[in-house]
């Protein structure tokens, strides 16, 4: 049963069938895809197949899929690339305070170049109000970037409504879908997004590869400039096994994602229910319904999230206090602060994110151990 890994929003293991698909491209078909000879050809065909697999998963055109080194690069590219394409014609963007740092810091970089940034607020469940987005639009608005689902609390944003507003005003719209792709249906047409970021290692694919889906006609300049790969929009020798792995992970998600997530959702519901029943004044943070099916973000008053994480670590349960991306950080989570969560609860919050290999036994064990650890930590506090 052990270990119990409950940190799938930080990263996932590579699925066996994904690894299987990647293997031939480490050695046999190692050619540089840009070359004209046969071994390059095989790599090139594999890349195009992966492009179609990714496109299929998000209902995009294969030609609109561009491979990158991960979610961070995709986010940086979308934001800086659009700004560069506008040159001086636009200089205002709209985002939210709960974005991943990859988005927030890319926006800050634009601010240094004279862009103005509007952060539309979120409510106490982490939800953005589309009307607030509409009100924030000015004639100088050149970009809207709002994440599909938040990586800490799991709240799923009303992207389709925001997409419709963006389209109405002809403003390029980017969404960071790193946490949703592979977990819930993602359809770029239905969402009305112009750009969408994907990262393979969040959906049982390899680390170091991702994609940016870019609707044709979106003003976007390259971020990485070099050898003319990706139709001149993203330089760098293709990470062939990585790209093949992302394609295989996309296909895997297409094949078993829905079913898998229903199972994970049931486990997650049981985990939340079990903990809330047994631990007095524990609360579920984020949206009660519109949330990622694998996310349980819980706050325990009177407990330090980090201490709880360490206590669980000692009994073979691995989860995180806030986002992995910012762990090591001692700052309180910017997401929870933006949601207006009570500082005591912020301090005591822990994120459990489930995955395909978790079992009911593991969940029951986790409930037990959480109850035990919280009680112990609380009694220490009282006596201390």
């Amino acid at each position, binding site marked *: 049963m052990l*270990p119990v890994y409950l*940190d799938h929003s*930080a*990263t*996932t*293991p590579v699925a066996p069938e994904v690894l299987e698909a990647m293997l031939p491209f*480490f*050695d046999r078909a*190692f*050619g*540089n895809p*840009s*070359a*004209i*000879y*046969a*071994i*390059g050809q095989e790599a090139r065909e594999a890349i195009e197949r992966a492009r179609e697999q990714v496109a299929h998963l998000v209902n995009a055109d294969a030609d609109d899929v561009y491979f990158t*080194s*991960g*979610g*961070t*690069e995709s986010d*940086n590219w979308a934001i800086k690339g659009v700004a560069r394409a506008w040159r001086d014609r636009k200089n205002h963007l709209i985002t939210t305070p709960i974005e991943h*740092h*990859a*988005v927030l*810091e*890319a926006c800050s*970089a634009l601010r240094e170049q004279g862009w103005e940034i509007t952060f539309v607020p979120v409510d106490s469940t982490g939800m953005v109000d589309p009307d607030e987005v509409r009100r924030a639009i000015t004639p100088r608005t050149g970009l809207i970037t709002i994440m599909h689902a938040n990586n800490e609390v799991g709240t799923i944003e009303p992207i389709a409504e925001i997409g419709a507003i963006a389209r109405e005003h002809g403003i390029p719209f980017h969404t960071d879908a790193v946490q949703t792709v592979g977990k819930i249906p993602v359809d770029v047409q239905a969402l009305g997004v112009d750009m969408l970021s994907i*990262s393979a*290692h969040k959906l049982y694919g390899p*680390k*170091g590869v991702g994609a940016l889906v870019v609707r044709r006609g979106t003003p976007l300049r390259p*971020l*990485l*400039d*070099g*050898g*003319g790969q990706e139709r001149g929009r993203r*330089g*760098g*020798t*293709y*990470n*062939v096994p*990585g790209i093949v792995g992302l394609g295989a992970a996309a296909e895997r998600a297409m094949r078993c994602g829905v079913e898998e997530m229903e199972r994970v959702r049931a486990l997650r519901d049981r985990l939340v229910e079990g903990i809330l029943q047994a631990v007095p004044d524990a609360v579920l943070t984020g949206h009660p319904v519109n949330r990622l099916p694998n996310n349980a973000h819980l706050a325990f008053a009177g407990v330090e999230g*980090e201490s709880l*994480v360490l206590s669980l*670590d000692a009994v073979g349960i*691995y*989860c*995180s*206090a806030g986002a*992995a*991306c*910012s*762990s*090591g*950080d001692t700052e309180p989570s910017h997401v929870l602060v933006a949601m207006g969560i009570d500082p005591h609860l912020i301090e005591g919050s822990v994120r459990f994110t489930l995955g395909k290999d978790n079992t009911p036994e593991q969940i029951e064990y986790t409930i037990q151990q959480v109850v035990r650890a919280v009680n112990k930590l609380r009694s220490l506090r009282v006596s201390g």
Partner: protein
Amino acid sequence: MREIYLDHSATTPIAPEVQTAMLEAMREAWGNPSSMHLFGRRARDLIDESRVTIARALGCLDAEVFFTSGGTESDNMAIFGAARVAPAHRRHIVTTTIEHHAVLHACQRLQEDGWEVTYLPVDPYGMVDPDDVRRAIREDTWLVSVMHANNEIGTLQPIREIAQICRERGVWLHCDAVQTFGLLEVKVDELGVDMLSVSAHKLYGPKGIGALYLRGGVKIAPLLVGGAQERELRAGTENVPGIVGFARAVELCEQLGHEQARHIWYLRERLRQQLQECLPDMQVNGHPIQCLPGILSVTFPGVSAESLLIALDQRGIAASAGAACSAGSIEPSHVLLALGMDESRAMSTIRLSLGRGNTPEEIDIAVEIIAEEVKRLQRRAVASAPVQGI
């Protein structure tokens, strides 16, 4: 049909030991290195060890090595990152006409933003004159970027001399060592560079991973932001198996040491001499001595490089015209033109690049096939040439 791979400058096959190390990392250390728990710590430890290995090979501190997604990103990061921290009155860059597009395109993009760039010429061997660098550096120069060895013709640049000049003038020097690292000794202190780009897939490591060396005290701005990874200079969840594979590949190259380069140079000379005997009008490009051991750039007058490459491919030989990156484009190579070559000769030039897996026997077979195909294409070219002068 026997396949003979003669395109190691484009990319190399992954070494079996490297693949093993990567698979193990994927199985045993797949956590997010930023996670505090066991899974994260295991991955973090592997990254730390790998960084030490690469730092040792470069002769620098591990804190001076930053992992990237490859040579292109390293080049972009160095140039854009340095540019971002430049004072307003120092917006001039000196580079050469034969750099990789990852450097050239980055410089061109800076020109759009009002930077001035001096592209230094090279001599007919593809060599930059350090005195040209000295003359090109101005009061407002912020950065010099010169590659260690050129990827199309193999010529090695006098980086030490250039570094000396840069140091005297208080200008940063970036060096793209993607083609040399792993094959020749690349020690950052001996070279005297401030920034240096390397890429794993050129040294029998994985694709999609590279590094940028930044001398302590050289503070540049990040290109990818949004996470505290790589000491806040390169955000993004680390490509752990890629990093592990990179380090393992570097270790293997170190173990092979000079033997690797010697073997490759021997094969290259065997190839050159035999081809020259069969095809007396063949021209060899690049510097005869100051060059990479494995690159042989050759011009066959009157032969279309593209037709030749297709013919060779059909007979099992993988080679390329110019850089792999720009293959597919049928423009003449900017490097060959910079040597003073005319367009038609540039379009008759191919690059054969050898690696440690090649054997003397393969070279002999390759010579035979190349000679046959070149002669066949030359005959065809003569037969189909318009009759002139009547």
